[in-house]
C-alpha cells in the first residue's frame, strides 16, 4: 500500500488546498462552516479552484480535466471539507454529473458540458426526488415524451439543492411506461433558462434557502441532451449513486464541530470520559478515511463499489451526528447560539442521513446484497 504513484502528489495537493483555504479565510472571504458542500455557495471560489486544476480532477485533459486519479481527488475534497470551504457551486457537477456524462454521454454532449463543469461555469442541480417519490427513484413521474428533434418534459422535482443558482439541471424522467417500474427511465441535461422551467424556494428549519421545488412545463430538451440510452436510466443512476455516496462529504459535514471538540477536550484535563469519547471518534474518523480511500481506489480500478459506498455513507452519517452529540456533552453547548459552530451543525444534522439515501434504505440495499452472496 501507499507505493501508488499518487502518494507524493497527494501530499502536494493537500498543501496547495491548505494554503488556498487559509488565504481566503484570513482575508475574510469565507467563514468555515458545517455542511459547506451544500450550503456555502461562492462561484468565485469554485472558479479559483478550477483555475488551479482542483475541480474536474479525474476528467480527461481533453475535456478540461486534470487527468488525475480518484485517490488524488479525495485528498483535495478532504482538505476542502476540513476547511469548511464554500464549495457548493461546483460540488454536484464535479462529483456526479461530469463523471456520468463521461461514462455514458455522447461525444457531442461530453464536448459541450464537461469543459464547462471543469471551468466552474456550469452549476448543476440534481432533479431526482419528487414529491411522491422521495428515495424511491423508480417511482418518478416526471415524463419526457419524444417530439421532433428532442423531448418534451413535464413534471415536478423537489429538494433540489441550489436550483436557484444552477445553470443546468440533471433530470431523471420517465420516457416510457413498462411493466417493471425500473425500466423506461432516462437521464437528461436541461438548461435552467429554458422556457417552462420555474424554481420556487423551500426554506429549511435554519431559515436558509438552499432547497427548491422545480417545475417543468412543456420544456423542450434537445435530443443530444439525453445521457446514455433512453430507458436505461435506472442502471445508470444506481451506478451514479455509488459515486454520490462514497465521498468524504459523507463523514465530514460536521467537521468544524470536531475541531471545537478537540480544543475543548484539551482544556478538560481531568475528564477521562471525554478523552475516551474523543479517542473513539478519532478512531472512527481514521477508519472512515480509510474506507473513502478504498472506495476511491475501487473507482480508479473501474469498479462501482455499490455496497462499500452504502456502508461508508451509513457509517459516515452516524459519525457526523455523534460528533455533534459529543460536543454537547461539554459546557460549551448550553443554550447554543444559532450561528455557532454547534448550532449550525445541529440544525443541519437531520439532513445528514437522508440525502443520498436514508439510513434504512442503505441497510436494506446492503442486506439485499448479503442475501444474494
Amino acid at each position: 500500500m501507499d507505493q501508488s504513484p499518487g502518494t507524493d502528489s497527494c501530499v502536494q495537493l493537500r498543501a496547495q488546498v491548505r494554503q488556498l483555504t487559509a488565504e481566503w479565510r484570513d482575508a475574510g472571504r469565507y467563514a468555515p462552516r458545517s455542511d459547506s458542500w451544500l450550503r456555502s455557495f461562492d462561484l468565485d471560489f469554485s472558479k479559483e479552484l478550477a483555475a488551479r486544476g482542483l475541480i474536474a480532477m479525474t476528467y480527461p485533459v481533453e475535456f478540461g480535466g486534470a487527468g488525475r486519479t480518484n485517490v488524488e481527488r479525495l485528498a483535495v475534497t478532504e482538505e476542502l471539507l476540513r476547511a469548511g470551504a464554500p464549495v457548493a457551486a461546483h460540488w454536484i457537477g464535479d462529483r456526479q454529473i461530469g463523471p456520468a456524462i463521461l461514462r455514458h454521454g455522447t461525444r457531442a454532449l461530453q464536448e459541450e458540458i464537461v469543459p464547462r463543469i471543469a471551468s466552474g461555469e456550469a452549476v448543476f442541480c440534481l432533479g431526482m426526488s419528487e414529491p411522491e417519490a422521495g428515495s424511491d427513484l423508480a417511482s418518478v413521474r416526471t415524463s419526457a415524451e419524444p417530439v421532433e428533434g428532442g423531448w418534451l418534459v413535464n413534471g415536478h422535482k423537489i429538494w433540489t439543492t441550489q436550483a436557484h443558482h444552477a445553470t443546468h439541471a440533471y433530470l431523471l424522467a420517465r420516457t416510457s411506461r413498462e411493466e417493471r417500474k425500473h425500466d423506461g427511465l432516462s437521464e437528461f441535461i436541461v438548461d435552467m433558462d429554458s422556457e417552462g422551467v420555474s424554481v420556487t424556494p423551500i426554506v429549511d428549519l435554519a431559515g436558509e434557502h438552499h432547497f427548491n421545488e422545480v417545475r417543468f412545463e412543456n420544456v423542450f430538451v434537445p435530443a443530444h441532451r439525453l445521457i446514455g440510452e433512453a430507458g436505461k436510466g435506472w442502471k445508470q443512476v444506481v451506478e451514479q449513486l455509488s459515486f454520490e455516496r462514497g465521498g468524504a462529504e459523507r463523514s465530514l459535514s460536521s467537521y468544524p464541530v470536531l475541531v471545537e471538540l478537540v480544543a475543548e477536550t484539551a482544556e478538560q484535563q481531568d475528564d477521562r470520559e471525554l478523552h475516551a469519547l474523543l479517542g473513539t471518534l478519532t478512531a472512527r474518523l481514521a477508519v472512515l478515511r480509510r474506507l473513502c480511500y478504498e472506495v476511491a481506489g475501487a473507482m480508479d480500478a473501474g469498479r462501482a463499489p455499490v455496497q462499500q459506498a452504502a456502508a461508508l455513507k451509513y457509517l459516515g452519517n452516524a459519525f457526523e451526528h455523534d460528533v455533534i452529540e459529543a460536543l454537547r456533552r461539554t459546557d460549551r453547548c448550553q443554550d447554543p447560539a444559532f450561528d455557532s459552530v454547534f448550532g449550525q451543525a445541529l440544525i443541519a444534522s437531520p439532513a445528514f442521513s437522508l440525502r443520498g439515501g436514508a439510513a434504512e434504505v442503505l441497510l436494506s440495499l446492503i442486506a439485499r446484497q448479503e442475501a444474494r452472496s
Partner: protein
Amino acid sequence: MSQYADELRSLVDDLAASGNPDLWNSLVGLGLPRVGIDEERGGSGGSLDDLLVVVQSLAGHGIGVPVVEASTADWVLSHARELDAEPSTVLLLDSALDAESGTLTAELSAVPWARDAARLVLCAPHSAPLVVDLRHASVTVSPVDNIAGEPRDTVTLHATPAVLLEGAPSYGAVRERLALLWSAAVLGAAHGAYRLTRSYVAEREQFGAPLLKIPAVAGNLARMRVQLVQADAALALATEAAPPEGATEIVRITTAAAATEIAQIAHQLHGAMGITAEYPLHHLTRRLWSWRDAVASERSWAESLGRRAAEAGESGVWTRITATGH
C-alpha cells in the same frame, strides 16, 4: 496483505473441518504457531501478516488454542536464543518487576494457558523481558478460566529463577504485536459469528418464510456487515507498511466495538437457539466478549488515543491520519 493468505486460510479451514481432537498438536506439527519467526531462529518463516491470517482463520471457526500467546512468546524468545520444542506462553504486565537478584517472587493473575506451558515470558515496562520455568519446584499454578473457557491461571512464583532475555523486543513492540494479533482474532470470530447468523436467518423459516425476509432481520444483518466492513478497514490500516501513528489503538477500538455489536445482534437473530450449549454460536460470542479487551480494555485504548489527540490539536490529529499521503 499476505501473499500466502489463501493457502493459509484453506489449510486452517481443512484442519478445522477435520474434527481432529488434538488440533493444537497438529497446528504445532505444521509449524503454524511459528509463522512470522525467522527460520534460522527456529521459526517457520513468513511474515507477521501471514501469522495474522492464521490467527484470524482459527478464530473464525471458534477454535480456542493458544496461538496468540505461544507465537508471541516464541517470537520474543527467538530474539535471545534458538527455539526448542517446549511450549511457552506470555504475560504482559503493566508495572515493572524487581528481578535484580535473578529470582522473582510474585503472584501473577490471568496468565494465559499457564497450566499447559513449560515457560512463561514476562514483559514489563522499562526492562527487557524475563523468562521463568513454569515447571520449577518454586512455581504454583492454580487454574482459572475466562468466560470463553480458556485458561487464565494464577501463577505464584516464590524466589523462582528468572532469566533476562537480552536482545529481545521492547515492551512496546510486544504490546503492539499482541494488540494486532488479538485484533485479528476478534475480527476472525466476528466474521465467524456473521457467517453463522447469515446462514441461520436464510434457512430458518418462521411465519411462512425465511427470517431474512423480515425487514428488521435483514436490517440487523446489514448492521453486522457494516461493522465488519469497518473492522476490516481498521486492520488493513494497521498492517500497512507505514501505518499512521495511533493505528494500534484504532484497530483495537474498532474491532472491540464491532465485537460488541456483532455478538449482540448474532444472539438476537438466533433467538433461543443461540444460547444452547450444542449450537456453535457461543464458541464465537464468548470469545468475542473475552478477546475484545485482551491486552488492554477498549476504554483504555480510547482514552490514550483521545489524550494524544487533545495534545496534538486538530491540525496534529489530521496530519497524523493523513500522513500516509493518500
